[in-house]
């Protein structure tokens, strides 16, 4: 495969990656959000594979494989198995801000990410020039998505998207430190186990995973 084609395919995976972030922001159903997360993880792995090919890096190949196993299979399987009812529900996820407004904010965040990383990207290899602004945009939009979602599971999915975004930039930036990227991918599984256990306990004890209804801890509430 020609190297220019590899760069082109990586740019395509980056564009699709950013699109999944926007679709996630617009998505109002938990099952659809999870499937977007899986697709995003596959795009993250695709980018790692392309870079592994271009740079002849065994480390990146390993990162790609572990990302697919952990994020496209194990984490979604654990979430569906433990919190299946939440995914089958056709009820719409409650958002603090309307979808059109959120999309406008996401466009603004993407522009900020582009202008912040532009001076860096000009002096860096092509993979970084593509992955850094897209990863940074994904990071900002995912933080926003987390802030406007009012239920536990969609909040956690935003956190997983945030993780993907950081690693989308990360695989291009730190190509030589695969050891800890592997540790971090495995750690994602630990995070999921802990959040699943916590969500189940919240659901059992309080009868809802609607975190906006968990509002006992405010100064005016503790009187």
């Amino acid at each position, binding site marked *: 495969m020609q190297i220019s084609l590899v760069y082109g395919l990586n740019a395509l995976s980056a564009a699709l990656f950013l699109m999944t972030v926007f679709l996630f922001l617009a998505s109002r159903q938990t099952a659809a959000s999870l499937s977007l997360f899986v697709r995003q993880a596959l795009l993250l792995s695709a980018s790692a594979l392309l870079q592994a090919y271009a740079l002849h890096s065994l480390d990146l190949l390993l990162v790609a494989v572990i990302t697919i196993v952990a994020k496209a299979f194990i984490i979604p399987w654990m979430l569906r198995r433990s919190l299946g009812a939440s995914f089958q529900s056709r009820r719409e996820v409650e958002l603090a801000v309307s979808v059109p407004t959120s999309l406008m904010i996401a466009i603004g965040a993407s522009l900020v990410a582009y202008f*912040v*990383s532009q*001076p*860096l990207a000009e*002096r860096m290899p092509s993979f*970084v020039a593509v992955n850094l602004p897209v*990863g*940074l945009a994904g*990071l900002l939009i995912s*933080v926003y998505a*987390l802030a406007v979602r009012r239920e*536990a599971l969609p*909040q*956690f999915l935003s*956190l997983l998207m*945030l*993780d993907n975004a*950081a690693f989308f*930039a*990360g695989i291009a*930036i*730190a*190509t*030589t*430190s695969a*050891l*800890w990227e592997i*540790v*971090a991918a495995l*750690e994602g599984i*630990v*995070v999921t186990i*802990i*959040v699943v*256990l*916590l969500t189940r*306990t*919240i659901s059992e*004890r*309080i009868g809802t995973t609607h*975190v906006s209804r*968990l*509002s*006992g*801890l405010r*100064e005016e509430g*503790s*009187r």
Partner: protein
Amino acid sequence: MLVLLPLLPLVAALVSLIPAKPVFARVATLVAALAALAIALWTAQQVGMSGNVTPLRQWIGADALSALLILLQAVLAVTAALYSWGYIAREAEGDETRERRYYFDLNLFVTSLFLVPILLQPALTWVAVELTTLLSVFLVSFNRTAEGLEAAWKYAILTIMGATVAVLGILLLLHALQGVSPGAPETWASLTGTAARMSPDLLRLAFVLVLVGFGTKVGLFPLHTWLPDAHSQAPSPVCALLSGVEVSTVLYVILRLMPVWNVIPHFPVHDWLIAFGLMSVGAAAFLLLQVHDFKRMLAYSTVEHMGIIVTAIGFGQAGSYAGLYQIVTHGLAKSLAFYAAGAVLLIYRTRNIADVRGLLRTSPFSGAALLAAALAIAGVPPFAVFLSEFSIFRSGLLAGYGWIVALLALFIAIAFIGVMLQVGRMVFGEAPAEQTHRRLPASVVGAISLSLLPVLVLGLYTPPLLHRLLTLASLAVSR
């Protein structure tokens, strides 16, 4: 020896899983903490003499900054283990499985705390910081109340979010390192040694990501919202560890990178720190005036103190010594305060300030301990915090930050009024007629008495070893 430090609580965690009487878990936790304290003291001695200890090159080691933090962590691990002995037995109400589970979680949490300052690779340190959150989530929700679960949820989501933002900053630094020194080991030392040759644009972005990311877990304003919840809902010995040392452990990562930030040309790193620090002190000071829960009051005081420390670091080299000293004095005083608050909770069974009256009459020991702890965290002489805060003011004035020092002093004064007003209402006056005195467990009394000692002693005398570690650590931070 240093390699054993995180292994000791790990072994105690495994012992806690044995389905025997909880006393095994209690003894294992206390013995492991005492052994860890011995290792921490040995490390401090070695570092004091030779500057660093490196048992596993490029993997595990300690310099003065690490040794200082390890010492604080180990002291608090001992007092928390002792306090937990009687406190958790009463909280668990005879549920032996629950008590053993507590010690398992507590020891794992202490293991993760010990890992942060001894790992020599920033990426692995990041993993350890993430572990401190993951391994303490179930300690925060130990009581399984609605409020406890809410606090645990906010704690997990916000601090993991912060760590994920910070990871990109760390990755950028590693990329810059490989750019200027290909094949160099990815250690803290390599980063600080090559920072001057790195791209300033890249360092600026990394700084913002690391400050915002780890700042979330340090409890800096405006990302502090999870802290009063988590630090008030956990059992008191856990609160002591969270407020006394966990936030400082995360702050350590920002401090460790100060020599990297210091070389960024035309970038006001110190002004950023002062701005975040002052905002945190100011916000916490005003929130302290309207708080109704005495454990939340102590948690807001942690936000205030983290702000003071970050402002001090922003003052430069002289501020670094004072700021690091404040990390030690605050950690000791805040653990004492949470132990005293736990004793009040055992007696009154409420965290509501309005429901606690006449504490000095109901339980003179708890009342006196809470009053002493409040005076200590408010920075009244002769307690240690007074000395460190005074040093911060002095360093700020010497560095030419007169107006900042004035504003800082004003916020600290407001916080002082807030804390003393609330505590004054609790300890003085007539006790409610229906309130009966409940005998405190001996371990609770012992841990409080033990914690009071260094808070008093360090206000009057700085041991030469501590002074040496502070000097070396402040040089490492302000290089």
